[in-house]
């Protein structure tokens, strides 16, 4: 049997991405469906998560599925020393699809190898988080009308932020121009810069974050600069306020520019930005629902045609 698991979307073709975007568009028109009536979706959160879990559970419920699972591995046999393999095999007897988050890198790929039912990776350590990438792509597509030829500005923690790394990889076929705006300690790792060079992705690195440097952005993707990421705390004190977006920095920006943030935010986007027409982070989170409805359907073999026919 073909395993339709989604562990990573980095290697998806443009056609496949477009198909998922079209499915998400259909779900945005009509989020509540009965496509998964009679199906059971298991959500196994070996590592706590609020946003991603609620979004997946909501997506499953709105598609008409029943949901089983756990939100804390302390209440499961994992705490008794059960292996991941055994937990996955056991749950595979009950559910039609498993959505899982795990603190260990590669856990989702391994899980997909030990079961016949599809696995959706809801984050494996700092490795991959394809549903976040999918909702980012959908948010960009929806607000810009295309994924092609965009100026995408990535701001903040570019060293540890896995969402920005995934975004670079999944945008590579759409001729983007990236601007990496980060303090020295959190700049884009060498391996991703090499990746860009190899793939012919244009990028510009800068440390200044002002209204002038962001004037040409189509997408301003903000991330959190976390204190614990710094080895040199004096450096943190010096740069902590340099990557905060304020409403008065938006006076020169493009009409179509949208601000994205994977959330949770702390202070990197000031609250006065929330009222701006450029603020898009809450809608972005909502798009996560439609993107996840699309992913769940995709792994269960439900096609765009099926969704269009379902009224």
């Amino acid at each position, binding site marked *: 049997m073909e395993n339709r698991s989604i562990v990573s979307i980095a290697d998806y073709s443009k056609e496949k991405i477009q198909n998922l975007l079209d499915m998400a568009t259909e779900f945005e028109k009509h989020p509540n469906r009965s496509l998964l009536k009679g199906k059971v979706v298991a959500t196994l959160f070996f590592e706590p998560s609020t946003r991603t879990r609620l979004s997946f559970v909501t997506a499953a419920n709105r598609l008409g599925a029943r949901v089983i699972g756990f939100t804390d591995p302390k209440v499961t046999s994992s705490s008794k020393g059960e*292996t*991941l*393999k055994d937990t996955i095999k056991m749950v595979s007897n009950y559910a039609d699809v498993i959505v899982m988050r*795990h*603190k*260990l*890198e*590669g*856990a989702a*790929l*391994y899980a997909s190898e030990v079961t016949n039912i599809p696995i959706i990776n809801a984050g*494996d*350590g*700092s*490795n991959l988080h394809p549903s976040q990438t999918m909702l980012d792509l959908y948010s960009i597509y929806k607000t810009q009308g295309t994924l092609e030829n965009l100026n995408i500005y990535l701001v903040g923690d570019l060293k540890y932020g896995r969402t920005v790394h995934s975004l670079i990889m999944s945008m590579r076929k759409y001729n983007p121009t990236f601007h990496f705006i980060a303090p020295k300690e959190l700049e884009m790792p060498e391996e991703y810069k090499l990746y860009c060079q190899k793939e012919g992705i244009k990028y510009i690195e800068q440390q200044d974050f002002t209204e002038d440097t962001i004037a040409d952005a189509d997408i301003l993707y903000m991330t959190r600069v976390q204190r614990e990421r710094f080895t040199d705390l004096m450096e943190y004190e010096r740069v902590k306020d340099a990557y905060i977006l304020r409403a008065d920095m938006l006076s020169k920006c493009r009409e179509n520019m949208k601000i994205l943030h994977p959330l949770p935010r702390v202070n990197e986007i000031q609250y006065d930005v929330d009222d701006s027409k450029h603020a898009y982070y809450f809608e972005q989170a909502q798009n996560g629902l439609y993107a996840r409805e699309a992913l769940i359907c995709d792994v269960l073999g439900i096609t765009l045609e099926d969704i269009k026919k379902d009224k």
Partner: protein
Amino acid sequence: MSNKEQKLVAALENGTVIDHIPTDKLFTIAQLLEVSKCTEPVLIGNNLESKMMGKKGLIKISGKFFTEAEISKLAVVCPNIRLVEIRNYEVVAKRQITLPETLTDIVKCANPVCITNNEPMKTVFYLKGTDTLKCRYCGKEQKLENIKLK
């Protein structure tokens, strides 16, 4: 191969000669092959003359023929050594060992939060270029010189 060496090889009735071992890797290889547990004759030589390498190490093991998995292990530690198989005093096969494209359950991942270090499972590594291995699971890359065997 010199006359002296040919004699050394010819003296083996059945078994394997591991040749062209860099002198500093000889004892690592000997340990890896668990020669201390061999009950049949084993000959270990070091700092032998070599036209190709200047000096080299060499191990002869009677009654021992290597499996592909064992050869892969040797290749990780020392990619350029040569194996000579002897049967009935005749050289039946000479092979320059090379690293396979995929290494299954040979190498340990250096990433402590990789699933392979936390589950009873096989590791899988892919060869990237000539000196880098990439973990199938966590995607982390490591240089061959820093590799730890499983």
